[in-house]
């Protein structure tokens, strides 16, 4: 398995990854500029704030991920959490055996 035998795929080339990232940045910039150009008809005054949707979208996703990371500290357990059943077994506890024998 030499390297030149292996087929290279689209995103194996870091340039293509960079291209995607730059493309997204360009799209974002254009969309913010469009906010100034297109007159938005809106139902609510908040919609008129400049770059309301971009900022809201960005901030809510960052908040979402940060809160989800905190949530992980609270709720994350091992993969087999529900499969394992250690705990106490009332029928094999000391002292409870005698009443079966009595």
């Amino acid at each position, binding site marked *: 398995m030499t390297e030149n035998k292996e*087929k290279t*795929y*689209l*995103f194996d080339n870091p340039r293509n990854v960079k291209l995607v*990232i730059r493309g*997204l*940045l360009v*799209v*974002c910039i254009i*969309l*913010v500029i*469009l*906010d100034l150009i*297109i007159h*938005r*008809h*809106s*139902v*609510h005054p*908040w*919609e008129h704030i400049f*770059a309301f*949707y*971009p*900022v*809201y*979208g*960005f901030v*809510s*996703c*960052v908040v*979402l*991920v*940060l*809160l*989800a*990371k905190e*949530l*992980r500290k*609270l*709720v*994350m*357990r*091992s*993969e*087999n*959490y*529900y*499969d394992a059943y250690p*705990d*106490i*077994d*009332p029928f094999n*506890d000391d*002292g*409870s055996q*005698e*009443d079966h024998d*009595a």
Partner: protein
Amino acid sequence: MPEALVTLPLFLGALLAGITRGKLRSILMLAAPVVGAYLVYTLTPGQNFETTLFDKPLTPVRVDSLSILFGYLFHLAAFIGVVYSLHLKDTPQLVASLAYAACAVGAVFAGDLLALFLYWEGLAITSSILVFARRSGRSLGAGTRYLLVQVFSGVLLLAGTIAWAHGGNGLDFNHIGLESMAGKLIFVAFGIKASFPLVHNWLTDSYPEATPSGTVFLSAFTTKVAIYALARGYAGTEQLIYIGVMMACFPIFYAVIANDLRRVLAYSLINQLGFMVVGIGVGTELALNGAVAHAFNDVLFKGLLMMSMGAVLHVTGEMRGSELGGLYKKMPKTAILCMIGAASISAFPLFNGFVSKSMIVTAVLEEGHEWVWLGLLFAAAGVFHHAGIKIPFFAFFGHNSKHIETAHEPPKNMIIAMTIAACLCIGIGCFPRTLYSLLPYATDYSPYDASHILAQMQLLAFSALAFLSLKLYEIYPPELRSTNLDAQWVYRRFAPTLARWVLHFVIRIDTAFRRTALRLMGRGVLSMVRHHRSEGVLARSWPTGSMVFWVAVLLGSTLLMYYV
């Protein structure tokens, strides 16, 4: 009377799937939903099938625009699901999936609560088979829990129906409302199936454990029947707005950290249901249209996403995000189809999610629920984040997993089923009028104006930017092998542990009680032995002379008393 036979093609299909094999079975199973859909096509609103049972008037089949829309939808979903499962030879699974679809069709055409109850329970039983059919220890447990919850919902529905009829309302299934106790019972019954917060875990528990094609069927029917039932019985109920916005928001946190990608989709299903529930709660014509249209679209794009993940599971046998990645190299078609589903659920313009979600969001804002609107915007950004980006990214891109070497495209029928769903997602997105014309209220709503498109594109582009920045700065939480605690912890951990503790406690008390009783009995036996053994007071032998003496004393004293 075609209206009475509306569920017959699918039920017959299920029956025939059980007794035929091979190509014939495939043809019959494909024909069943097509014939059924044609039957729905021949129906006209108001064409009800009525009968009487013990002098009670019943309407087992009621035809109106709402039931016709769902009728089409379920036949379509059944058709796509059948195509997706054509490679299967597992008879119980195939029979169950068509019977399940038939029950869903029956439920949306049910004109009275009794018929609804029967189909409601039919849904529970047939769908649980799709979970059991995975034939693993986990699916057995998840399926059993699923069945218990579903049957409990059915019991509540029955209790509510009896109370509702007893209150003099008859059995007709129309607007119910929350005023009466019966109304509340039925509301909870519907709520369980619609996966309201705290009773939602049956969904995220069982769907990831079902078979690849089973999950496709599951994601289409049960919850959509519940949405239909809520729209019919509780339109305009304000509580639904707040329940809905909770449903739209809280699951996305779990979706971000869940590892099993079908579990991510299950959480995102609850998030989409939240949008529909909000629409039903708002209750205006636009909102109800939006809710119903979104249910229609959700079946398509959620089905498509579930199918693409099912294909990955089928090929690699793996569904954990931590173990997958880079599969676009070997499964490019599946990856593209998955991304079409991802774009649709994220409500990109020209995809079907956009044309229905925007109706709900607009209706919410028009009714002045601005905080709810902010919640829905948050949920809309979040859904792109976890379903739109996370699902394709961790399955098909991201790091190179060990499955790349052995991976290949799934069977042709799976690709065809996904292609059908993808074409419908784009078709409805580009030509929403076809869907709008089927909606319960006539509408001239147009989703495609510059303001809407720009707002949505900004929201989505900057959500993607957020994902990108978090990923580049390595803040984004990695996929980890894990279980995340949720409301189900109460019945999967807390209640069993509590029961064990109580049992432990009872056994301790029981032991102590028995010991004391034994000790007391022992003492009793000992004292009896003391008094009755050979030298005991009560067992001593007495000389004859003393008896004669005492008899003489007795007779003497009697004589004395006679004279005195």
